């Protein structure tokens, strides 16, 4: 398994009506690898993730998971091999944090999953909130509760079928700085034990810290792909985000963006020209 990718998307496109949301994207992820997908709003990042999770079906191209066509797995089989955290999950009924996290266990009896549930709740730091109703918590706390639910799903699946894949759609959008880092660390830990992780991220610095490989998207296509050093360059960022930005290097050579040096290209050209 180490040499063949867990998930392979070849030439996938999605067209809805006249609009092409995704245009011929190739992607392959190995077991234990962490990929970040970045790009401006509307670049097709979430669409790509929804295709990879089998939520949507590609108009062209094929996706295989563990050597089998993605859509040939039943929903239950799929859930044991890939876990997906969506961007916005709203719960209108008063489930407690613990009850929501327990939902991640799928068809497993509660007794055999409870230790995983406890571990996940502690891992995301919601121990104090275990018996609180989810709708009463803040956006970030709710997001962490759903992350814990996904961790339980992943753990249950991996216990039965070996390393799976973890898809995260802007998992840090409502999180404070500390919890962003924690989420990244938790995901990295999963990758170390073989999970393939793909996350859509907005914060490029977090993406650099997060990923072995970064896929930069623009207008439904891959604009750049490679290691953080290869992809997070002022050239790529100018091309994709239409802003000028200073990219510095940390001591270990990882790139990072200096926000105070950002400028819209239109403004900068008018100044220089």
């Amino acid at each position, binding site marked *: 398994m180490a040499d063949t990718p867990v998930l392979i998307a070849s030439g996938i496109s999605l067209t809805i009506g006249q609009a092409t949301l995704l245009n011929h994207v190739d992607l392959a992820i190995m077991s234990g690898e962490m990929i970040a997908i970045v790009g401006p709003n509307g670049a097709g990042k979430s669409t790509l993730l929804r295709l990879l999770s089998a939520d949507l079906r590609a108009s062209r191209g094929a996706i295989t998971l563990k050597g089998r066509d993605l859509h040939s797995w039943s929903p239950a089989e799929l859930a044991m091999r890939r876990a997906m955290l969506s961007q916005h999950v709203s719960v209108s009924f008063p489930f407690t944090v613990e009850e929501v996290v327990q939902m991640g266990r799928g068809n497993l009896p509660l007794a055999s999953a409870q230790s995983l549930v406890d571990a996940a709740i502690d891992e995301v730091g919601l121990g104090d909130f275990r*018996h609180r109703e989810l709708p009463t918590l803040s956006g970030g706390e709710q997001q962490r509760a759903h992350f814990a639910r996904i961790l339980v799903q992943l753990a249950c699946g991996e216990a039965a079928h070996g390393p799976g894949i973890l898809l995260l759609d802007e998992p840090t959008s409502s999180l404070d700085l500390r919890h962003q880092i924690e989420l990244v660390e938790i995901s990295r830990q999963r990758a170390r034990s073989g999970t393939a992780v793909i996350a859509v991220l907005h914060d490029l610095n977090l993406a650099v810290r997060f990923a072995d490989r970064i896929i930069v998207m623009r207008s439904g296509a891959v604009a750049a792909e490679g290691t953080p050093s290869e992809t997070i360059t002022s050239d790529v960022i100018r091309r994709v985000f239409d802003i000028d930005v200073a990219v510095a290097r940390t001591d270990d050579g990882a790139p990072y963006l200096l926000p105070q040096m950002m400028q819209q290209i239109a403004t900068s050209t008018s100044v220089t020209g």
Partner: protein
Amino acid sequence: MTAADAKLTAFVRTKGRVRRPATIAVLCGLSAALLLTVLLAATVGAAGIPLSRLPAALGLSAADPGNSFAARDQLILWSIRIPRIAIAAMIGGMLGAAGAIMQGLFRNPLADPALVGVSSGGAFAAAGAIVISDSRFAHYVAFLQPFLLPLAAFIGSLLTTIILYRISSRSGRTSIALFLLAGIAIAAIANAGIGLLVFIADDRQLRDITFWLLGSLSGATWSKAATIAPMLALGLIGMLFTSRGLDVLILGESEAFHSGVDVERLKRICIVLVSVMTGAAVSVCGVIGFVGIVVPHLLRLMIGPGHRLLLPASVGLGASLLVGADTLARTIVAPAEMPIGILTAAVGAPIFLLILLRQRGLVGL
């Protein structure tokens, strides 16, 4: 962090901790409540049967030689009161469960089969069946008796639920405002249809339709009980396969799919279950509103929203509630009877308003 912030944090941490009662305690409590209401319903009525004469009337013990009422008691109990209690319990249970399933399916605590026109759709089809079965087309449907009315009500409810779902759901999200408004429109259409049937019906059909639409249980018989019992059984069995899926469905259709639920299949099962149970209830006693909204709401406050316990508990509480309401309906203005729909609406409508007010932000109307 300022002192005010710290205070707020401390408040938030201790506030809102929820303790759920043990499953076994809930089920025992509900069973006890049902038993008590049934005992009450058996003893109270136009002809009272005191508790002391109940065992004899039930045939559990030999009649006291000095008891001249034994034969009368037995007749009333076995041919009038017990079938009526059984039907009230079954219908209450089905309406409670149908409400709970529907609320899970639509991810919306305001869903109720009667409120959004599902019962009216069933009633329209059933009224149509009454007119047809008494017309020159009667021999086409004769082979369906005595299942004609429940079958028609089921088909009417099923079509209404499907239409409602199609209208109010788009790409896995259900709009609550759209759902309620569409429900009102569908109920209006169904009621117009019933009005039309009343208009074209002859005197005898009219009496049948009106009597049945009033929503009274006074026509309860053993054969009616036997007709709807299989539908309750179907509902109870179906529930076993929906409870986990409904829990996850609350998070949204995508999330339910991601966690391994076959969403399309679950939705189909739920729509059929709601329609079978609503149709069965409607076919016996017309449209009884608000049971489906009050019962799950009260239960969620007590035991939480988990469907594994909520669904069976809704059956239990719905049964107690309707047996109690029917007992009240037949004693409150004795010797006359009040239509039970009036009672359930009088209790249910204020509770509905209360939920609406608490959820005002969420509904976004």
